[in-house]
């Protein structure tokens, strides 16, 4: 996993008033747990936004009041309207203790099926992986080059050395499916415009029938 450093300052008091004051000052209240004790602290919002607004997963070196620990982001809460982070949970990491992380799935290459008119369907952006912090990769790479239309790659086909993927092994991660454009092109291309008109026509017919029923 990628590493990044963050520094936080311990919270003097906990509670709603204190948390609101922290947020007003441009910081985010946070908690670190997983070790012997839990620590309440606050971190800069700007520094946090750089970590959370990426597809990557980071191993964070936290410095709270001079004490250094390694952690991952376990949970986050966001404001429903402004979408700003309002609280972050960090889970302390230990070299000999397994941890569960949602690792990003990335595809490599252009599938044969896409060249012949198919579309790539990604069912999972991240997969839950359990393993020692040292064994966890940055991301999982899937080679989709040999996939043709109708082919798929399942969770069971992905191997991460030293780690276990927690999702159902039969679950499809990537599939190449036929697009509507490809289907209409195969049918002769004449249906494209007519099909669209047909759908709109159906909508108005339904509306008319409902209005009549009322």
């Amino acid at each position, binding site marked *: 996993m990628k590493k990044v450093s963050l520094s936080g300052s311990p919270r003097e008091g906990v509670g709603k008033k204190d948390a609101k004051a922290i947020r007003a000052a441009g910081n985010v209240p946070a908690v670190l747990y997983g070790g012997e004790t839990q620590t309440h602290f606050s971190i800069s919002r700007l520094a946090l936004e750089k970590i*959370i*607004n*990426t*597809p990557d997963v980071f191993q964070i070196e936290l410095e709270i009041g001079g004490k250094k620990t390694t952690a991952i982001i376990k949970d986050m809460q*966001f*404001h*429903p*309207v402004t*979408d700003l982070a309002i609280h972050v949970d960090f889970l302390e990491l230990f070299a000999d203790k397994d941890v569960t992380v949602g690792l*990003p799935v990335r595809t490599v290459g252009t599938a044969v099926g896409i060249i012949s008119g198919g*579309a790539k369907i990604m069912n999972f*952006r*991240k997969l839950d992986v359990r393993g020692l912090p040292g064994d966890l990769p940055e991301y999982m790479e899937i080679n989709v080059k040999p996939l043709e239309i109708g082919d798929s790659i399942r969770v069971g086909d992905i191997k991460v050395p030293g780690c276990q993927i927690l999702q159902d092994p039969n679950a499809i991660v990537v599939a190449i499916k036929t*697009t*509507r*454009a490809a289907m209409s092109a195969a049918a002769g291309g004449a249906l494209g415009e007519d099909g*669209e008109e047909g*759908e*709109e026509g159906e*909508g108005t017919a*339904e*509306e008319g029938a*409902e209005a009549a029923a009322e």
Partner: protein
Amino acid sequence: MLQPKRTKYRKMQKGRIKGLAQRGSSIAYGSFALKSMDEGFITSRQLEAARVALTRYMKREGKVWIRIFPDKPMTSKPAEVRMGKGKGAPSHWVAVIKPGRIMFECDGVPLEVGQEALRLAAQKLPVRTKTVVRRDYQE
């Protein structure tokens, strides 16, 4: 248009919309979404108009999710009828929206197409909206 298959009661009291959306405020399925900034009632007709605008701009590629459902019956009295004599007849269905609620999500199209499609859909809705993009979105 969307409406419940069957309900326990035909009519419902008006109620008041208080507070912010406590659930349904984050993107769950797609990469781009339309979030409400106001509270309000969205009728099934408005919802359908927005869906048509969205799918038409996306040229029926990609995928669309509707995250709200009009499950509240609204009633209206006939024209030129004096007040009283009971509540009016059910006329349409609405979805109750609180600020922060994700209403539409889409995926499978480029960012610019998704954002423009959602902007067009927002024109059909009676609330202020904003377009949101998944935090881990990657082209």
